[in-house]
């Protein structure tokens, strides 16, 4: 944080000149948001006119919107004029020179998570040239994808190389005016990922942001767009179990998924942004809009998320089940420890006939944290034969935390079948004693019981991710019992 504050101070002390963007050479704009800043970002990225206009429209609408207050979270007001909306990747000389300069606590966590040594430097932001292993992996990876005709690149690159695809699908799932943070993201997003899977193609490997090392420092207002054309299939992994160093407090990402006829998208997230310290100081505000559109018949979108990080999490990965027989799934583990606050869940909007959705949510609260599930299942009159099953369980560890459940069910078709079940309980003393009697330590016993509680969700994660997620859960709940 120190460097960033210093930087900001420096920038703030500079005099703001109206219309600076034509004169300015620096790679960073001073804090504040206005149309010039947006034009500056767009120009920096060499965007076509329509893209600039799209951003400006979003911005103008954002100005008219009130900040949402309905979530079960509390935080001091955000000063949107105090944020700097564009800064180029950090210069190597500002970054730590070696792991010796990195916070030892961070390194300790990497150790516990079993992160390979050569990866730690990259994650900690050490100024190394691209790590050798990753480069070679990336190269073979790119070749393989190109062979299959899959487009996987940064969002900026896609605007340049595939403008017709971007223009066609951008904002088609999450309109720029959708909500306060989506509008803000639409105005100022800097980069993100773009994926297009052509007709009938089964993506030959799991796509992971992890491999896309060219898009560093895009965390704050990330924009992701994935389009699965007819009959295609893709599995996308986002995030990383290791705590990423990031100095931006507000994250407002937008993710849009489009699944055409017979297509399937599986989107897995592990979110472990900095949660703040034990006293709740610092930490990321993670206000994300994620939505998938099952546009074609028989399409399927599946969200799996493991949320352990961030001071505040506010996200509802949703599915619009437009196509007949389309399927939406949401599997979530959300952990809140210390003073973390999470308000997360999903929306399943049933429009097409025989659409089906499944929601499995596991919330774990510890310390003084507040963890809320908020979900909506809406069945429209057109959704003949729609089915939903929701299971929503909360586990409490310690008597100073909270677990809340706010499910909205709106049914307007008599053939719909909707089942919602929720339970809240603490870790059973019986279970704990049983494990201790078999010789396990209390910590191991808690980890084992918690992992068992989350199993239905972990099962949905790709194998390696699942193993990492379990380790992550254990680290996140460290010190919660005792």
């Amino acid at each position, binding site marked *: 944080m120190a460097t960033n504050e210093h930087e900001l101070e420096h920038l703030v002390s500079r005099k703001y000149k109206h219309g600076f963007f034509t004169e300015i050479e620096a790679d960073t704009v001073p804090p504040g948001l206005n149309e010039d800043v947006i034009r500056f970002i767009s120009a920096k990225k060499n965007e076509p006119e329509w893209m600039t206009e799209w951003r400006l429209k979003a911005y103008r609408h954002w100005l008219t919107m009130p900040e949402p207050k309905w979530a079960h979270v509390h935080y001091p007001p955000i000063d949107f004029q105090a944020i700097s909306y564009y800064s180029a990747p950090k210069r190597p000389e500002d970054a730590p020179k070696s792991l010796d300069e990195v916070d030892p606590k961070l390194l300790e966590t990497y150790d516990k998570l079993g992160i390979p040594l050569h990866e730690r430097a990259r994650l900690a932001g050490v100024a190394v040239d691209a790590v050798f292993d990753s480069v070679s992996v990336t190269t073979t990876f790119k070749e393989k994808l190109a062979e299959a005709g899959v487009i996987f690149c940064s969002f900026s690159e896609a605007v340049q190389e595939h403008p017709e695809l971007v223009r066609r699908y951008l904002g088609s799932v999450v309109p720029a005016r959708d909500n306060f943070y989506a509008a803000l993201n639409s105005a100022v997003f800097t980069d993100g990922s773009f994926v297009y899977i052509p007709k009938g193609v089964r993506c030959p490997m799991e796509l992971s942001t992890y491999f896309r090392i060219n898009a560093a420092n895009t965390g704050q207002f990330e924009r992701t767009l994935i389009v699965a054309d007819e009959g295609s299939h893709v599995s996308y992994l986002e995030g990383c179990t290791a705590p990423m160093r990031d100095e931006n407090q507000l994250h407002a990402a937008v993710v849009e998924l489009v699944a055409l006829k017979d297509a399937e998208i599986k989107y897995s997230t592990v979110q472990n942004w900095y949660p703040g310290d034990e006293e709740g100081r610092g930490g990321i505000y993670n206000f994300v809009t994620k939505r998938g559109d099952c546009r074609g018949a028989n399409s399927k979108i599946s969200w799996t998320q493991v949320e352990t990080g961030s001071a505040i999490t506010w996200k509802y990965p949703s599915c619009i089940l437009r196509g007949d027989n389309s399927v939406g799934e949401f599997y979530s583990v959300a952990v809140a420890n210390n003073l973390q606050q999470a308000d997360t869940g999903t929306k399943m909007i049933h429009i097409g006939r025989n659409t089906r959705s499944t929601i499995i949510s596991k919330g774990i609260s510890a310390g003084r944290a507040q963890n809320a599930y908020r979900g909506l299942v809406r069945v429209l009159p057109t959704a003949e034969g729609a089915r939903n099953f929701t299971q929503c369980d909360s586990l409490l560890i310690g008597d100073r935390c909270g677990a809340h459940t706010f499910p909205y069910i709106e049914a307007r078709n008599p053939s719909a079948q909707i089942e919602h079940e929720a339970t809240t309980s603490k870790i*059973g*003393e*019986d*279970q704990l*004693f*049983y*494990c*201790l*009697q*078999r*010789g*396990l*330590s*209390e910590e*191991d016993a808690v980890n*084992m*019981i918690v*992992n*068992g*509680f*989350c*199993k*239905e969700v972990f099962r949905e994660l790709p194998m390696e991710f699942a193993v990492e997620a379990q380790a992550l859960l254990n680290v996140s709940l460290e010190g919660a019992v005792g």
Partner: protein
Amino acid sequence: MLKIKDLHARVDGKDILKGLTLEVAAGEVHAIMGPNGAGKSTLAQVLAGREGYEIVSGSVEYLGQDLLELAPEERAREGVFLAFQYPVEIPGVNNVYLLKAALNAIRKHRGEDELDAYAFMKIVREKMKLMQMDPSFLNRGVNEGFSGGEKKRNEILQMAVLEPKLALLDETDSGLDIDAMKVVAEGVNSLRSPERAIVMVTHYQRLLDHIVPDVVHVLADGRIVKSGDRSLALELEERGYDWLQKAVGT
């Protein structure tokens, strides 16, 4: 091996054990019988270190150590095993996973190497055969959806794998039909050895037809009121507990 002296314990402010004294040597099998509410299960829970039981006075010495000073998991690692009257369900946690974690925790404590998956499975398969358990048990959640008999067999399987020095069987026969009881008894009998002590807590004597004890104690109103050999159990069966309670004036 186990020396309990004048043990007083209470639960929720109510005295349950009121001066219980008992000695068990290695190689012996003891049966503790008694009417409902006498404190049989409390004794088993206290020995295993369950929270919520207040030790008012008395001592428990186990292999020369003060057992009451140890945490539950330390007792387990030192070789105390409790077969629960009501084995606990832990959803989502594989049976085999718990077993492996438990065995390795105990081995580590003893200064032995942790077993790899292959060596571990070899032991488990062998013991499962003994308990006539289907291999599919291993991949089910711990006791999740098990029938009463399956749960009890699972307890003895765990005991067979963990090879404790002192096994406490709490009403292991309750809820078992005769065939299941035979399997359980066979499992227990196979674990009888000169180094191991077994303490069975039971209300009925029928289990003792299958696991023949060296000593039988009667626990009534928080104390051992009478000890004897096998024939004491038969006498109890015939005459019930009332005569005894009257005879000893409790």
